[in-house]
């Protein structure tokens, strides 16, 4: 599971940058970008505590 949580965390982090970049290139509207950013934020904060700072089994 650790690998899964880590993957979701890193994807969330990537989306945190991707959403504003897509807004920059006019691919997304600002409101869409904000919503995706919030989802990515939730993804990061929900999954990261499950592996970061914890001992590797």
């Amino acid at each position, binding site marked *: 599971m650790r690998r899964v949580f880590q993957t979701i965390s890193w994807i*969330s*982090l990537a989306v*945190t*940058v991707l*959403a*504003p*970049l897509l*807004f*920059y290139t006019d691919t997304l509207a*600002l*409101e869409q*970008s*904000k*919503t995706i*950013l*919030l989802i*990515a*934020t939730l993804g*990061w*904060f929900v999954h*990261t*505590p499950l592996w*970061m*700072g914890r001992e590797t089994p």
Partner: protein
Amino acid sequence: MNVDNQETSEPVMPEPAGAGTPSDEYEREPVPQKALLGFKSFLGMYAGEHCAGTELMIGPLFVAAGVSAFDLVCGLVLGNLLAVLSWTFLAAPIATRARLTLYYQLEKICGRKLVTLYNLANGVMFCFLAGSMITVSATAVGVWVNFDMPSLNDRYPNSIGWVLAVMGVGGLIAIVAAYGYQSVVKFANIAAPWMVLVFLAFGIVALRQFVTANDSEVDSLGDFWELATTSIWKGGEPLPGQTKFTFWHVTFFAWFCNMAMHVGMSDLTIFRFAKKSWYGIATSSGMYVGHFMAWLAASLMYALQLRLDPGNTDVLPGPMAYKACGVAGLLCVIVAGWTTANPTIYRAGLAFQAIVPKSSRFVVTLVTGGIATVAGMFPGIAMQMLGFVALYGLVLMPMGAVIFVDFWLSRKLGFQDRYAERAGLGFNWAAALTWFLTLGVCVYLVKSKAWDVEIYFVGLPGWFVAVSLYIVLSRMYQRKI
């Protein structure tokens, strides 16, 4: 700006964002070989810790100071480089040789009583800094609740709503600091990478909106520079009540905003864990992520606000972040202020507790949080952040000069190092007078009409004054005793 790793009577290592956390062990002994940490630990720690709530105030204040694009970008590049070099060539070499905390090293040189006084100064500055972080977080409340928020030139609380918002945010931060300091540290470590990227998102969104507002296109670096020089950081007169910032202001501000930590030697406590002194260059992660990217991103948001409504000069991170990144942006403002105010209050509490050792840690932290909350109600501290940060570094700088002289020059110049320890002194007058007289000279240089040195620049001559004073006074003092 990092302000949460200053030394106190009970030194606590700031927990880095990355792995390999140095602990708060070895407070009164050199760090042993087995406890030393690699380069990456410092890289992660500095990157995370210098991307804090205060960046959201400092970036906009550059724009309010009428800075031009060249002065800002080049000033930050040079100033941050000088800061990195100061860590690498001043703090880290002593830290990796002595491997002691700042407190313990100062105690050996200055004596316990003088260190207590240093702690008091440190604690007071911490309270004001934590207050400004609470101010930053409280601006987020104004997005949801309608009340009068402070404007750029407000010094005092301007509405009941504002006072209540600060009380709510500050009270929570103080309670959490008193109860669950370690859990907030863990949360801060988790939040750090996300926070850095949200700062980047602020800049990207604001730049796009700037391009749209100007009805221009940015397809190359040249286009961006054109936009930057003509619309974003146009230069010219500062906003009313603000000091005009030139290239040299930006350079010296970037160099000295963490003066307490490099020239002032507070980060001896951190670099005592470094295997090599060149690990000092790891601070470049904090400087060029936090003090370059984050400052530019925050200043972009404010420049956009002025572009869309020139009459709206309010520096309110909450509303600005919400406009750019929605709820995630707002969370970033709250988290950035909270995670940096929390350890600052905790460590201010430790500093005060050193003065009254029998007092309860819980009560002291709570009272300190209360003081910081009251300070946070006064927006003058956050709105004058550029000047306040310069003052903060200046107050603690002379003790760094004392350590420098003690470590490198004392024996060569014919006087004893670690004099308080050798002579059994509780109060080394040579160090105390160096501190007070240096600050006196600096205040004179700033206040005197003949010299009229701005506070951003006075740290440099001040350091040489402190070095000279400690040499002369130590020779006199040690001969007398």
